[in-house]
């Protein structure tokens, strides 16, 4: 196994395009190193992207924020601008692992690990985040929900890697939130995760809503029908009940060591109501 740490985008692209065996991108390493130790992966080449200066920062871009692929969750949660604009995304990043893990883990890595239970992904999907991918053919921008294609699988090519994730600017009276269910208080993996991002008009009527679910299907789900239950309402109890029903209906979970189909389906609805209330509260200001 070879370990290389390029310092430029071009260098990283060249390494990936020239690689013959299996490769693995390393950013924070909080998944990759664990998988290596557990002998779950045996890559021929590890490309560490942490030394590429261009992807180590958070930059303001047209009122949104571009978050470099090597930015740690801790750096993100300590960034006032991001926290003010996308509190739900930040609280999701702040749930990954532990304080120590967040010092190294990145949201790009959380996305690329391809886990349906990744905490930051439903929040980013709800936010409409856009992923910039770099490869031999240059760069392309893709909606975040298009990245995971199955457990542990993504649509990113072998010669590509994530450059950054863009959290877009948003209208006034918008709010987002993320909650997950875990049996413990921290250091755990979501049994169900729900991210909701919504916008209201001046009279308090919801005009846009995106609802994303984690750990209830093979990939994180963007559930448009669930968002529709909120649009045109004041997010009152009746709307929340409809939301819960739509969310539960969209769940396609499995029975496993972390929870049953029945439990996940039920709790996804319960969490969605709680998340929508927080998001609405934030939108109302």
């Amino acid at each position, binding site marked *: 196994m070879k370990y290389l740490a390029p310092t430029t985008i071009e260098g990283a692209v060249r390494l990936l395009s020239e690689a013959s065996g299996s490769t693995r991108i390393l950013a924070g390493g909080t998944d990759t190193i664990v998988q290596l*130790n*557990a*002998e779950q992966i045996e890559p021929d080449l590890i490309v560490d992207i942490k030394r590429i200066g261009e992807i180590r920062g958070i930059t303001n871009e047209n009122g949104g924020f571009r978050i470099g692929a090597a930015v740690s969750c801790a750096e993100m949660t300590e960034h006032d601008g991001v926290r003010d604009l996308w509190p739900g995304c930040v609280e999701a990043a702040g749930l990954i692992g532990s304080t120590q893990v967040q010092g190294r883990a990145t949201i790009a890595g959380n996305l690329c690990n391809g886990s349906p239970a990744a905490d930051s992904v439903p929040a980013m999907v709800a936010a409409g985040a856009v992923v910039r991918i770099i490869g031999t053919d240059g760069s392309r921008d893709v909606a975040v929900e298009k990245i995971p294609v199955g457990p542990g699988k993504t649509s990113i090519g072998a010669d590509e890697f994530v450059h950054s994730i863009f959290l877009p600017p948003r209208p006034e009276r918008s709010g987002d939130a993320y909650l997950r*269910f875990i*049996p*413990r*208080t*921290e*250091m*755990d*993996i979501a*049994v169900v995760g729900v991210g909701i991002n919504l916008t209201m008009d001046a009279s308090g009527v919801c005009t846009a809503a995106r609802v994303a679910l984690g750990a209830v299907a093979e990939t994180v789900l963007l559930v448009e029908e669930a968002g529709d239950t909120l649009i045109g309402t004041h997010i009152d109890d009746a709307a929340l009940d409809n939301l819960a029903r739509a969310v539960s209906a969209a769940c396609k979970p499995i029975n*496993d*060591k*972390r*929870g*049953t189909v*029945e*439990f996940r389906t*039920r*709790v996804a609805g*319960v*969490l969605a109501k709680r998340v929508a209330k927080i998001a609405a509260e934030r939108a109302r200001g």
Partner: protein
Amino acid sequence: MADIDRLEKVDGFKVVGTRPNRPDGVDKVTGRARFGADIHAPGMLIGKVLRSPHPHAKILSIDTTRALALSGVKAVLTSDDFGDVPAMHQATLHNVMAHNKALYEGHAIAAVAAVDVAIARKAIKLIDVEYEILPHVTDVDAAMAEDAPLLHEDNFTSGIDPKPSKPSNIATWSEFGHGNLDEGFSQADIILEREFTTEATHQGYIEPHACLATYSEDGNSEIWCTTQGHFLVRDTCAALLDIAVSRLRVTASEIGGGFGGKTVVYLEPLALALSRKAGRPVKMVMSRSEVFRSTGPTSSSSMRVKIGVRKDGRIIAADAHLNYQSGAFGGFIAMLGAMCAYACYSLENVRATANEVLTNRPMQASYRAPGAPIVNFAVESVIDELAVELELDPIEFRLMNAAKEGDRSSYGPVFDQIGLIQTLETARDHPHYQATLAKGQARGMAVGFWFNFGGLTSVSLNVNFDGTVTVSVGRPDIGGSRAAMCQMAAEELGIPYDNVRTIIADTSSLGFNDTTDGSRTTFANGLAIIRAARGAIRDMCARAAKTWDIPEEAVEWVDGCARPCGSNAGDFEPMCIAEIARKSPKTGGPIAGHHEVNAEGAGVSFAVHIADVKVDEETGRTDICRYTVVQDAGKAIHPAYVEGQYQGGAAQGIGWALNEGYVYGDDGIMQNPGFLDYRMPVCSDLPMIEAKIIEIPNKGHPYGVRGVGETSIVPPLATVANAICSATGVRMTQIPMAPPVLLKAIEKNNKQV
């Protein structure tokens, strides 16, 4: 000399009862302390184990040719490398290395030693094993079925007379009790009969098993390992490898938790056998997955409990039947469960029976009060339900039926001075029990029992020329016991705590010591140290008498000094320990004390736990909001470490109650062999656990010490279950009470209401 043979000391302590820093503390917080894996030897090889991927399979052949051919591989080990062993060690041998059959997923099949870890890992994959897969069983009830696959064709249930005619998976049958149950139940006004199940848990020590073994050409060998009992490691390894006990020296490393799980050998005999084959030191360290799949855990169980009461609140008859799953080899834990079942109660008609059941799971190991928390969950749940039926306060109901001095216990012996009633009364009057519940919270309590043990003990105590003292003990310190040893020696000798240093000596330096388990260390080591110190004091008084030329009887030991006493003693300035020690070369040589004993008289102890919980009825999630432990310590030598034991036991019990548990698929494979999905509580899951020490002296110890390490894990399962029942109206009969299980029960209950 008047005071020297006194055995009782109940007050006037100077060092005992204080809270000095632990002697191993600085090294542990700075990282200097050396644990099992923190050792290296010149020329050291790395050993790795090939483990069975099947829960039950016949091993048709093992071909090690390809592994041995790999450059860097120095030895490969299979069961063929071990000869016959005495019957008492056969299960251990067949557990550390599968013999003809793999009995559980993770069972060791072969091992390699190679120059580095990468080559060792690669070599493991080059060992070709041909298996014939057999049907398996991991569930305790399924394993007792007529048509269940048999683990051992030659297992006939022991404890039954006459011997059964057919083999089965029931290893042992146990029965305890007295009186006439039928008569008792016929007088009962209320009889409740309930069934319960619990899942297996792991001890969950943070430090995985690790060792370094060196076998020399001259036949001498050494093991360094993380263990609760290095004498046990020595004697077991010597038996498995057929070497003389004197040839093997075992040194215990610092230990990162054991909780009973490090009272058996796993890697040590393999490392030593690999070293013997390779002619080089061999180090082995388990991964967390190996720890879960191949070591520990405790039993899973199914149980039936039946209790009858009169309207006046008196329990008139109590019966229990337990089936404890013991993994691939039988043990004694179901028996302990049956013994503990009703130990808290004064009963005329009582019976507890137990089956120890073999399954295709790892061989169970002791876990803190082994067997007791499981049955306590069942019994204390029914007791709680009866208190509700009788409209009695749960503590008052228990007080009405509590075991007391002179009662014949449900497991046989008559109780000596015990503190159950005082423990219950203290809990009842405790601010926690008296406090008004916060909104949305509910309260539960339970009481628990553990025997505590003594056993084989050998210690030595050396007085150095400067008057400081070194104590050598033979039991690893897993809970701060070195501090307690220093305190007891300092107390007896009348010198400051800081002038005593206690070390854990290796197996060649002391007589045999039983393992650090059974809550025995502070009791049994302490008793021996006190007597060793008294021996040294007697010697020092004699030397002072000789110096002063007065009779030995005319010298007493006060505050670290010999001084004349009595009418014919004469007038001499006191001679203190430093002076006597300095002059010792001229008065007869070095001064030391030692004591060897099979310590008896370990006093039983009881605990009452109180929990306030909040249940999220939409998700089934339980939060522990407040938790209090009230427990009898006999005498708390170091109160902070006693409190730590109470808190630690409670924390582990809460984990067992709520989220911990082995998850098996239909394939017989453990699905959660890691701390992510084997959910032990993390710090933020628990409130600060309040610990209230009660001291009802144990007459078997000079200072009254009772063991404190285990009792505290006994009541939490029932305590939390009873609190959840108060909160939701749902009586949980299944452990763990994980959110999916609890939510389902709540929703079922809501539909019925």
